[in-house]
């Protein structure tokens, strides 16, 4: 039987495996079952490893996300609380400071360096699984530094500043992706603020797309794969994102899987897009029905990976996650 890693790699190559891989965006859902608090899972390497072990045992996962990731909101909040830092990284003086900033190398950032150590441990502990790390995308990073409200004004009043800021954030994101890739981890870039729930197609094409292209090219030039996830509604920019040449595109529940298959079948690995809230509020039957709907749309496409549209909320019922995975394993044969 193929390993999860082999299934995912087959999907990237467009080759047949035994079934459609399942790709879950999970956090510390199994922390309690493993005997740890959520905070321990988010901040302690040994706890994170043990929780990951329980997770793969319970779910027979194909893919895992490396924990202790300071770029994920829940871990970011936990670390900032631990370190006594404010929750926001917004810089009121950014216009003055930006020209003096050079790209901070991944190993110079203590939190991200600790995450790279975690990447190395995960490669050793979980060799049979496709390992990913979520790296915050350049546009969302730019908005965090500048302030989302202020950036919306810059779109009209100071485009050059936004371009310069995106140059900085993109180079930082590239460095992080390549650092993870060097260890054998696939970079999965999550750029939530780049979706149409936040910006418009015009803004995406002018301010984000060129930098996403630079990012994809940089990762692929070093022989790696890049996955991209944009939260919310993405339909109006499907063709733009496909033009980037991303290896994997994960879409959220508000986006249309049907439309993405129409315009993008075979062009990328399509990942998604079961509503994450179904894992919280839905029944087993709801999840099975939604899984079947996705599998029907995919029609045994070899470049399809089934999964939730976004991170499964911590409030999700573990029985629901298990039911979904079991259904996909049974009904997703290729």
């Amino acid at each position: 039987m193929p390993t999860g890693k082999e299934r995912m790699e087959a999907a990237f190559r467009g080759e047949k495996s035994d079934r459609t891989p399942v790709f879950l965006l999970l956090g510390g859902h199994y922390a309690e079952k493993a005997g740890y608090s959520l905070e321990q899972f988010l901040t302690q390497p040994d706890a994170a490893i043990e929780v990951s072990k329980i997770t793969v045992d319970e779910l027979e996962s194909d893919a895992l996300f490396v924990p202790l990731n300071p770029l994920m909101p829940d871990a970011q909040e936990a670390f900032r609380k631990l370190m006594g830092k404010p929750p926001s990284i917004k810089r009121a003086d950014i216009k003055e400071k930006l020209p003096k900033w050079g790209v901070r190398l991944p190993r110079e950032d203590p939190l991200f360096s600790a995450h790279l150590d975690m990447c190395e441990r995960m490669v050793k502990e979980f060799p049979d699984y496709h390992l990913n790390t979520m790296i915050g995308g350049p546009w969302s990073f730019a908005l965090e530094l500048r302030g989302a409200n202020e950036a919306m004004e810059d779109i009209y009043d100071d485009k050059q500043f936004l371009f310069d800021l995106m140059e900085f954030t993109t180079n930082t994101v590239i460095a992080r992706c390549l650092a993870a890739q060097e260890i054998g981890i696939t970079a999965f870039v999550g750029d939530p603020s780049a979706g149409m729930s936040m910006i418009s197609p015009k803004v995406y094409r002018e301010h984000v797309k060129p930098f996403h292209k630079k990012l994809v090219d940089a990762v692929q030039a070093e022989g790696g794969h890049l996955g991209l996830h944009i939260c919310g509604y993405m339909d109006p920019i499907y063709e733009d994102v496909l033009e980037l040449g991303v290896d994997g595109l994960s879409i959220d529940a508000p986006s249309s899987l049907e439309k993405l298959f129409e315009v993008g079948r075979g062009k990328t690995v399509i990942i998604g897009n079961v509503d994450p809230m179904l894992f919280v509020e839905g029944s087993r039957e709801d999840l099975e029905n939604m899984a079947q709907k996705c599998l029907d749309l995919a029609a045994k496409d070899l470049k399809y990976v089934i999964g939730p549209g976004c991170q499964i909320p911590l409030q999700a019922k573990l029985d629901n996650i298990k039911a979904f995975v079991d259904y996909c394993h049974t009904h997703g044969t290729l």
Partner: protein
Amino acid sequence: MDWIAKINDAVVNGRKKEVGQLVADAIAGGVPAPDVVNQAVTPAMNTVSELWKKGDYFVPEVMRSAATMQAAMDALKPYLVSGEHGKGVKIAIGTVKGDIHDIGKNLVAIMLEGVGYEIENLGVDLPPERFVDAVRNGARVIGMSSLLTTSMPEMQKAAAALNESDLRGQVTLIVGGAPITPDFARTIGADHYANDASEAVDILNGIFG
């Protein structure tokens, strides 16, 4: 010179840098300030809302129009008598504890202000008692926003604090945010759920006229 049409056009098209002068010129030209609000600014924001619903406008365009509307209102303030325009309804809106996202919440606030509501923007990362205090300070509507699934329990706590207070009967609770669903809104005892700012405006206009 049709100042009303020019100001309306400036707000719809987000010409923020021009609108202050247009307002000044209109006032100097004898147009009453309430007419500028009721015939130019408010209808402009209604047009923006319709463009958003149609899918022609997205958040950046709506925010730009909203900022332009605010610039127009700032220019009009010296000429407006309190209570002369607007609906006379105070709305307090904020993002719940553990969440610092505010762009959606700010957009709702601005859109509601644009159509005549009095807005108290409570900010972000708010403990439950801040919402209850807002009702004590005269808010007839409380708006709660949450963008993270991890802060949804905080919305539940804030709604509970309001539901359990002796003020619940005098306030309308409306909730929204990316992870919020109509089911969740019902579960926590909210009166309404709005998918976006435009829907929030429609719902509240349906209640308050």
